[in-house]
């Protein structure tokens, strides 16, 4: 079976797709304002016409490259290339200013690869094991699992949890439009045939992740980019020494990153913030953080790349996305007949192993291509924005149109682009909304069928052992902030 999986990956067409998406990912990651999620949303219309393995391979490769490449403009421009690098942008820039840009970029690359490979290893081991357990799940367990995922998305988002809940509920509301509900009854369709099919997710995501980001870049048009000067020689110099000096940090970053990635709704960006904070907290020299110290870059750099692979664990096993990238991926999996769920390991084992191989390949490929990207950073960052942004917008239009071959997709993209921009500007995180849209149908289906099975008796939701455990976990998360506040008040 492994042999067949290798045969699927080592096909020249697949290898070309991987190489192409790698370069696309590096570019998108390196240019501030273009994110890994945006790369995924823009890739989807293109992957429609590919067989399953290259389609998924292109997304895996592009996102891995983009998350690493996000470190590059941090060093040169003091701007993160993707939100996943924002946690240590100031640190990396401070290193460049001290003539240590080479080390910052090298550490970003090497520890991205290590973190990515670590996350991949956990994915390969944990996903099949979890699937064994998940085979026994009924609608009650799935209901709590989705609840748990939605709640952790809300509480792991940075900022006001109440705004996170609003964002989540808006997502659920969007998901409930159309005929696709347990009763098969048209809801919120206003007599329109377009709405009866429900709101298509991909144009919405292109709007929320690409158009809103472009609006933000365009609004900041008055601020020119100032490039810091840095001589970049051999980026691998001193890396072996750093690996030996900070093994605990590397491991801690990779473990925390994978775990945060696997929790629904929180992805590479939150993983990097948490790992950077943790690195500072446990460091022997916390006073050096922020002044151009490589330790935090190592831990957070490993963390954000491992989160990427971790996010695929719940996505593949339960169909619950671990971050906004896998939220898009799940749609692609369904289209390609690789329906996520515990049975994926029986029905599509070969394709799945092929995807795992692509993960490893993409992370290894990051070494040579990453060096090339660092060397050509100056040229990439000089790409004229006044040409780039319009071309991406045109691509967004065509991509949104292509999903259903209808102009309604473009309207959705425009509307949700503005909505996404306004939400982010007012402190409403977008990730819970996306998760709500993706999981809305699943939540409702499992809720209603559980209610029917239990004949409206809420006790039935917690009598099965795993369901009960998940319910307890859900309520602990729900009341954690409240309890913590009461505790502090009681102490103070």
């Amino acid at each position, binding site marked *: 079976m492994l042999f067949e999986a290798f045969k699927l990956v080592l096909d020249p067409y697949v290898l070309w797709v991987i190489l192409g998406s790698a370069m696309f990912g590096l570019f998108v990651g390196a240019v501030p304002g273009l994110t890994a999620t945006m790369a995924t949303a823009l890739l989807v*219309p*293109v992957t*429609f*016409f590919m067989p399953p393995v290259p389609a998924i391979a292109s997304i895996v490769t592009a996102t891995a490259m983009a998350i690493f490449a996000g470190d590059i403009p941090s060093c040169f421009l003091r701007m993160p290339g993707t939100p996943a690098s924002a946690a240590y942008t100031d640190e990396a820039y401070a290193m460049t200013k001290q003539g240590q840009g080479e080390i910052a970029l090298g550490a970003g690359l090497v520890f991205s690869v290590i973190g990515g490979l670590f996350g991949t290893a956990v994915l390969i081991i944990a996903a099949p094991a979890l699937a064994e357990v998940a085979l026994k799940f009924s609608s009650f367990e799935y209901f709590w699992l989705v609840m748990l995922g939605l709640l952790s998305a809300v509480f792991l988002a940075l900022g*006001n949890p*109440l*705004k996170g*809940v*609003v964002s989540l*509920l*808006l997502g*659920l*509301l969007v998901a*409930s439009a159309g005929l696709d*509900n*347990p*009763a098969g*009854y048209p*809801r*919120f369709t206003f007599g329109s045939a377009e709405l009866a099919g429900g709101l298509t997710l991909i144009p919405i995501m292109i709007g929320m992740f690409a*158009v809103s980001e*472009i*609006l933000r870049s*365009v*609004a*900041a*048009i*008055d601020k020119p980019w100032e490039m810091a000067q840095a001589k970049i020689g051999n980026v691998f110099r001193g890396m072996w020494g750093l690996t030996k000096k900070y093994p605990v940090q590397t491991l801690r970053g990779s473990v925390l990153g994978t775990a945060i990635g696997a929790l629904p709704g929180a992805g590479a960006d939150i993983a990097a913030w948490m790992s950077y904070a943790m690195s500072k907290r446990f460091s022997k020299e916390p006073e050096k953080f922020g002044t151009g110290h490589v330790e935090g870059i190592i831990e957070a750099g490993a963390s954000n790349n491992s989160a990427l692979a971790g996010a695929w664990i719940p996505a593949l096993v339960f169909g619950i996305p671990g971050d906004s990238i896998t939220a898009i991926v799940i749609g692609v999996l369904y289209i390609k007949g690789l329906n996520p769920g515990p049975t994926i390991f029986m029905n599509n084992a070969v394709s799945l192993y092929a995807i795992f191989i692509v993960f490893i390949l993409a992370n290894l490929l990051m070494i040579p291509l990453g060096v090339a990207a660092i060397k050509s950073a100056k040229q990439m960052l000089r790409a*004229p*924005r*006044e*040409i780039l*942004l*319009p*071309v991406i*917008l*045109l*691509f967004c*239009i*065509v991509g949104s*149109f*292509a999903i259903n*071959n209808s*102009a309604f997709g*473009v*309207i959705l*993209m*425009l509307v949700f*682009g*503005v909505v996404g921009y306004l939400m982010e*500007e007012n402190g409403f995180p977008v990730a819970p909304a996306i998760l709500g849209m993706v999981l809305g149908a699943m*939540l*409702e289906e499992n*809720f*209603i069928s559980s*209610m*029917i099975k239990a*004949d*409206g008796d809420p006790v039935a939701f917690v009598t099965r052992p795993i369901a009960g455990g998940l319910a307890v976990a859900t309520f602990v998360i729900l009341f954690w902030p409240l309890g913590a506040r009461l505790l502090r008040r009681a102490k103070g």
Partner: protein
Amino acid sequence: MPGQKFGPAWFPGLVAAGLGLCGIGLIAAGLRERGPWVTFPGWLRSARARLAVATVLGGLLFYVLAADWLGFYLTALLITVVWMRVLGASWRLALPAAAVATVVIHLSFYKLLRIPLPWGIFERYAF
């Protein structure tokens, strides 16, 4: 719906109730903060940024309204040139760049991926 204990209104109903509660919570928090009711982002003060944002939104809207009639080529070319000009590209850069982008995107989506992008009034020249 009759005959069904847990019909299609259940779920949106719960969501709406939750939204209402959160709304009350946010209003209460807002009143406690005593900040201004509405604040505007800094970029609104820049005429150039205002124009750029308006053109992006206007261009997308124009595409939705005009593409079926003018066809993809003309609409896309028009909005891309306008966007590039507003963002600061010279005519000499914007015209060829927009033309190349339009042609490449059209060929790759229409020919390779078989997406029926509209021809509009150029129907008889369709290839």
